[in-house]
């Protein structure tokens, strides 16, 4: 599913000397990372250390104020749509419409990513089952709990295959059992060559993940804080 052909001189996904400025404040700078097939990057750090900002930069939603991102040696800014097509982003918001059912929500996002809609529907239904939402498939979004909404979003990621998953605190509001399902899903995703960048405060088992502690890239305090 994921092409294994890879020019050996380039790492698959790479960031060089990334810096990000939010509201005039430098959040992090001189940040480097590389990711290969099946790789995982665990972002740690206190509140406000730039985990979410980094994920948004990686998603292409936010432009880095310095540095560059490369996919297979190609600068990412040259083709933002290709990057969007291979990336799933899971942010703080759940993107759940109060009047759309669980199945309709997941199917819509699956259909946006896949061209064949019957196939997309089947994959969406399977993903809903996988996260234990099968009995809620016809439930409108307004009736869902916070944890259930989060699981709908995780099902969205599973319903359409994308090599890169960017997840901003995916364990928020999840119970132990759902976190276990998520860990299995992440392991399977990586086993097929997928990549994960994940920020968390809770414990989540991500074997052989490279840990990136963001406060190491915080700029030296300038003047009064």
């Amino acid at each position, binding site marked *: 599913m994921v092409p294994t052909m890879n020019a050996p001189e380039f790492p698959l996904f790479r960031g060089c000397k990334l810096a990000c400025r939010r509201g005039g404040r430098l959040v992090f700078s001189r940040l480097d990372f590389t990711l290969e097939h099946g790789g995982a990057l665990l972002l740690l750090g206190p509140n406000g250390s730039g985990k979410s900002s980094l994920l*948004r930069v990686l*998603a*292409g*939603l*936010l*432009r880095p104020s310095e540095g560059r991102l490369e996919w297979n040696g190609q600068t990412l800014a040259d083709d933002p*749509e290709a990057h*969007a*097509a291979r*990336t*799933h*982003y899971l*942010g*703080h*918001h*759940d*993107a*759940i*419409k109060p*009047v*759309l059912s669980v199945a*309709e929500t997941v199917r*819509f*996002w699956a*259909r*946006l*990513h896949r*061209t064949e*809609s019957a196939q997309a529907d089947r994959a969406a239904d399977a993903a809903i089952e996988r996260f234990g939402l099968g009995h809620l498939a016809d439930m409108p979004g307004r009736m869902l709990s916070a944890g259930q909404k989060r699981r709908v979003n995780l099902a969205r990621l599973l319903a359409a295959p994308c090599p890169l998953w960017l997840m901003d605190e995916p364990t928020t509001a999840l119970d132990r059992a759902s976190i276990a399902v998520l860990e299995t899903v992440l392991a399977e995703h990586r086993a097929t060559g997928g990549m994960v960048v994940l920020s968390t405060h809770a414990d989540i088992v991500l074997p052989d993940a490279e840990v990136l502690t963001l406060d190491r890239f915080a700029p030296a305090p300038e003047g009064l804080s």
Partner: protein
Amino acid sequence: MTRFFEVVHRDLRLALRQGSDSVMVVTFFILTVILFPFGLGPETNLLERVSPGVLMVTALLASMLSLDRLFQADYEDGSLELLAMSPMPLELAVAAKMLAHWLTTGLPLIVVAPVLAVLLHLPADGFAPLLAAMALGTPVLSLIGGIGAALVLGARRGGVLLSLLILPLYIPVLIFSVGAIDAAIQGLDAGPHLLILGGVMIAALALSPWVAAAALRQAVE
């Protein structure tokens, strides 16, 4: 292209289930037009004279009512970020949302306009150009309005700001649609006015999705 229709389909489904926006727009249109005979008095001559202007100005104000919701709900619940990150160009998604907006607000206005025209004693010659002007003009309202809706995202009191931004841009639509109806009533050719209106619509169709998408990219940063 299937993706385009997926987004249109989703927005139509949302509008249908929530229902309030279309109903509100049409009700506002009807009520406001009905107010004019009360305010101006029942003289047929006077109503005949003002009816094209009243209908167009009211339709324009009515279509503005629902504009601030065009992107706001998607912006607040994070759907907009996901749309920006979907494999389809954001411009296309924006165009789909504008089309859905027109189908749920512009189209109902076109349907009720002839009924209200009867109420205002619009002369018989004016009906065809009224429908033509509405059919060409209301898409412009959704298209240009979409730019405004994208620009005010995240601003407090965005609805008021939106009116200030967008109303001046609606003036050409108003001038040429009322011009077309007036010309037909006076036995002149409405064609040139409608052609200009069509030109305005095509220009708006070509430019608005790009401008709105650029504004949305700023908003999700």
